[in-house]
């Protein structure tokens, strides 16, 4: 009898031991690790400072709420953001991204800035099956870098084709001889944009009379400027990094080349453009996808917070980087676990208007990119104002360039 009782007790204990872990919830991880390689130094560092703020602010916000709620563990788990400086070098981005995946064991990644850097990290994320959300990579340059299509990397930025069309429509507001000179560097976006401008110009009644292409880091543009002058181009469009763009614009002034309209994509966007050039930057333009006056939730507040935190003038990159981090955080929350495939699927299901605008990948090109609505910005007295299309404009269009 005693033996039987002992046997029953033994079986009961065994059953308890087996069932106990299944009955209670799994122990939640101590943290969710999100990593990013960003250009804190080097020629693209102007982007890195905005990225650092955007990513960190979104992570700090969710941590103030206790972290991301993961249904699998029935608990909120704080997020740790790991950032490494890629020194504006694609090779360093690849190295950092491998380090983030292999050493820091990140659960998900955020992107760097500009196509060469973003793509360099994206290739590693794709290979290692780690979800990544990025901004600051024009969509066609991003998609064109992987002919087989991205599976793990998601881009929230503008579509170059739409930007091209907006530029030509903006040019229509300027009285000119409709002759355009292009200055494009040999980065991925420079190549893509150069091709698009050449292709689209005739459709809008413009003639590309000169196209200068050159390596990144070129310092002397005298010869190119003279050729544009000789070709009588009254409009210039440049796609180049900020240090190079500054040199080009300074040398244009020195050589007395005064185009009636000037678009400086990428290089003319960071606040350093105005800080360095001052009044001579007045009237220069750059395509935009975000402005604090837009009717997106928290747009003006985001600008105010950035300027209060840093004491610097805002850039539109605070919005797409902040949003990229939010999209990733929301997706992890929807996935309810740290399973990478679940997070990746959840990113794809994003359908919400964030501070940067509507984000929906299923309607985007190739379903891995969400294109933001685009408009034209113009530097006016140290601030970027929307000047086209008219229904969005925040200021009068200044033309020709003073």
């Amino acid at each position, binding site marked *: 009898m005693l033996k039987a009782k002992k046997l029953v007790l033994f079986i009961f204990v065994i059953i308890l031991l087996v069932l106990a872990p299944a009955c209670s919830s799994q122990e939640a991880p101590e943290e969710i690790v999100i990593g990013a390689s960003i250009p804190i130094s080097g020629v693209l*560092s102007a982007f890195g400072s905005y990225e650092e703020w955007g990513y960190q602010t979104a992570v700090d916000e969710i941590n103030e709420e206790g972290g991301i709620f993961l249904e699998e563990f029935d608990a909120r788990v704080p997020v740790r953001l790991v950032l490494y400086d890629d020194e504006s070098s694609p090779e360093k981005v690849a190295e950092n991204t491998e380090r983030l995946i292999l050493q820091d064991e990140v659960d998900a990644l955020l992107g760097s800035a500009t196509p060469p850097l973003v793509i360099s990290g994206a290739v590693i994320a794709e290979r290692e099956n780690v979800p990544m959300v990025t901004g600051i990579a024009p969509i066609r340059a991003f998609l064109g870098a992987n002919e087989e299509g991205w599976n793990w990397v998601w881009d929230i930025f503008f579509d170059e084709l739409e930007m091209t069309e907006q530029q030509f429509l903006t040019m229509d507001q300027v009285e000119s001889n409709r002759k355009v000179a292009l200055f494009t560097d040999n980065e991925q976006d420079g190549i893509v944009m150069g091709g698009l401008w050449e292709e689209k110009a005739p459709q809008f009644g413009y003639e590309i009379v000169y196209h200068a292409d050159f390596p990144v880091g*070129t310092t002397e543009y005298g010869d190119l400027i003279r050729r544009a002058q000789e070709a009588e181009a009254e409009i210039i469009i440049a796609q180049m990094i900020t240090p190079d763009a500054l040199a080009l614009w300074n040398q244009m*002034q020195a050589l007395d080349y005064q185009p009636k309209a000037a678009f400086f994509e990428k290089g003319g966007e960071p606040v350093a453009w105005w800080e360095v050039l001052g009044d001579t930057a007045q009237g220069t333009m750059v395509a935009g996808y975000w402005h604090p006056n837009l009717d997106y939730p928290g747009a003006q507040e985001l600008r105010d917070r950035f300027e209060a935190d840093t004491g610097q003038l805002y850039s539109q990159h605070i919005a797409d980087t902040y949003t990229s981090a939010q999209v990733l955080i929301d997706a992890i929350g929807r996935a309810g676990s740290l399973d990478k495939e679940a997070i990746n699927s959840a990113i794809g299901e994003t359908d919400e208007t964030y501070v940067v605008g509507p984000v929906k990948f299923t309607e985007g090109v190739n379903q891995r990119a969400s294109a933001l609505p685009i408009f034209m910005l113009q530097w006016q007295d140290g601030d970027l104002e929307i000047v086209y299309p008219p229904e969005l404009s925040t200021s009068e269009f200044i033309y020709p360039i003073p």
Partner: protein
Amino acid sequence: MTINTLLAGALNGFFLGGLYATVAISLSLVFGVMRLVNVTHGEYLIAAAYLNIVITSALGIDPLISTFISIPILFVVGYALQRWVLNPVMNKGMEPALLMAFGLSIIAQNGLIRVFGGDSKTITTQFSQRGMEVFGITVPTIYVVSLFIGIILIGGLHLFINRSFLGKAIRAATQDPETAGVMGINVNVIYAITYAIGATLASFGGLLIGTAFSFVPSTGFYWLLKSFVVVVLGGMGSIVGTLAGGLILGTTEGIGAAFVGTGYRDMIGFLIFLLMLLVRPRGLFGQKGSE
């Protein structure tokens, strides 16, 4: 391509060559005296440009005047680095000094990032965005100013090395350090003074780079390479050769860019560099054995 474009390219390049020479003079001096390939040269140039901006904004003065204020600061820093950091490894062969200089270069670059951030900067002077007509062709005024500064600095340095007592001591230390030491010349002090003079010359190079172009903390490497080409062309260690090297490089780049495009400008410079190394390794004005 019109003949005017070609002439403009040549003239533009010629004046730009003055900037190249000014930028390279410090590298040439240090190599000529110490046989040290000073890889911190680029960081000196960029640090000088940043220092110029700091002094200009702090005192509200013209960047040209700031340059003269930065000279003693750079002299002291250069002297201290050579005297107490580089000199101790100089007698252990070329490699330790080169590696030490590499280390200093990395530290300096990271220090600049830490202090000034990574945003692009330029130095705004009255010449920054002005052009002037030379033989009917408009060239940036800063290039013309650069050539004048280059001629004055190189001429002055040439006279200093050949005529002054200190210059003769430097030459003695260059030609035969051991005998110079026996004759009572403190070679370590001479090396430190030479390096410090090089650092002060970099203040002019930094001013010109910052005014003509833009810069970030990592820009120094580009100018180090450019300076190498100038020094090799003109003759390693030859002060006057540096001016010739700069002008040849600038002019050839200008003509080459007019022919084949600005995208190949740097490639043209390095082709000449390789050609010179093959044909005349000691450069145009270099003495036999300097290679």
